[in-house]
């Protein structure tokens, strides 16, 4: 099985600080992969390197076998990688429908087609009844669903999700987990999810990659990783 996404020795520095050092891993089609690690481990930086917001200082990023290192975010989106942000970035003065339409326009010029897609994806993420609400009026959780629906409307093969669970209630976390499973199972979209809350991401992920101080310290099935000494140490902060 060839990898959908491959990172090879990705390194990113900010001045003297090394945010990612020599990170290498693969994500295969149809997986849900959790990218975990304590705060400041370099998870978001790595996401930005994949999604085109940062250009890595070293190493390569491959998507479907194609070298996409240093591609701009919009180009990466067109190739089939979508991402959501930890802090929601929606178009607040546009309606829910219009927000998702902007995503759908990534693949079509037709306004009516984009509108249909907006309805479909809006319903999929549970906002079917609020299509004509202004996005700025939605609750935080709804804005997160909207962000997700909008990302899905760009028809990605790989979805990068940055801390979707942050700021959600237990009930909302539950529906988010369900939604992510449906994205994989019904839509066949591969998901790479950044999270620092272990107990949510572990049962959800097929495989887990652990970052600490910018380096990959473990990779494997959730139950294996959670027994790994280095991982336990990283999370408990022991020397």
């Amino acid at each position: 099985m060839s990898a959908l996404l491959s990172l090879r020795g990705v390194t990113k520095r900010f001045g003297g600080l090394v945010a990612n050092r020599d990170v290498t891993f693969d994500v295969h089609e149809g997986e849900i992969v959790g990218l975990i690690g304590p705060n400041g481990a370099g998870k978001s930086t790595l996401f930005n390197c994949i999604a085109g917001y940062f250009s890595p200082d070293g190493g390569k990023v491959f998507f479907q076998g194609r070298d996409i290192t240093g591609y701009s975010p919009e180009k990466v989106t067109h190739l089939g990688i979508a991402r959501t942000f930890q802090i929601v970035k929606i178009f607040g003065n546009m309606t829910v429908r219009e927000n998702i339409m902007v995503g759908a326009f990534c693949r079509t010029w037709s306004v009516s087609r984009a509108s249909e897609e907006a309805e479909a994806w809006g319903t999929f993420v549970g906002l079917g009844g609020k299509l004509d609400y202004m996005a700025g009026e939605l609750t935080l959780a709804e804005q997160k669903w909207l962000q997700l629906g909008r990302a899905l409307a760009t028809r990605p093969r790989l979805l990068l999700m940055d801390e979707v669970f942050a700021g959600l209630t237990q009930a909302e976390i539950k529906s988010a987990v369900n939604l992510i499973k449906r994205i994989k199972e019904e839509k066949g979209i591969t998901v790479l999810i950044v999270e620092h809350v272990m107990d949510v991401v572990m049962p959800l992920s097929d495989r887990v990659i652990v970052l600490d101080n910018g380096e990959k310290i473990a990779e494997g099935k959730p139950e294996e990783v959670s027994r790994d000494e280095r991982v336990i140490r990283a999370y408990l902060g022991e020397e």
Partner: protein
Amino acid sequence: MNPDLMQAITSGLLLGFIYSLVAVGLTLIWGVMDIVNFAHGDFLMLGMYTSYVLYTFFGIDPLFSIPVAGALLFVVGVVTYRTIIRRILDGPMLIQIFSTFGLMIFLRYVIFAVFKPDYRSIQKTLLSGTFRIFGVYVGIPELVAAAGALVTTGIIFWIMNYTKTGAAITATAENREAAQLMGIDPDRIFSLSWGIGGAAAGIAGALLANFFYIFPEVGGVFGLTAFVVVCLGGFGSIHGAFVAGILVGLVESLGGYVAPPEYKHIFVYSIFIFVLLVRPRGLFGVT
């Protein structure tokens, strides 16, 4: 109704449509990238000179110069973005102000140098004459210009609200980063906004060339009025600029009716100051 009053209202409306079109171009650029194009009025001036040159040297009626001026100023807008604006996008506000202000001076004095400061006009056009309706005199060039401005504003409104391109422009204006995530290249959108903004000014200039004096500083009057309109309508609001343009046209015309015409601008700028004081975000502006 008093025929003079009706005359004033008619003239105000006709002029207002032109103001709307000029202001729509200005507010579009403003809304998308928070940059004020001080050279906007001079884009309009270039549109007028396009008509003048085509008429004087090639005998082309100004009616047919309208699309040419629109296309030319679209290019001028794009070139302005690519050569100047792109470099100062993230610069300090003062730099942004000086750069478009500098462009304004540059364009104005290039035209001074080439065409001299003379007032020119285009005589004998396809559109000339007036007709009388309900006791009101309507100039045919003015009527056609107003209609042309209305149609052009309508087209821009349609693009902004009912096309993929418009959605991309609106999304970029709202959140550049999120727009990129949706596969939108902000650089292309900025470029396009300057093109559309320039074309709006160019078309307005070519429409005006049918009946208005053409001189190097003509952009100053229209540019300044466009600022008032944008401020009144709400920064970045297309329909706000449309409504406010008509209002300003009416105020200017009615001002010239109730007071000596040379005082008409006092009314316009009084509104400007009043809006700044009472409702700084304008009629349709979002906070």
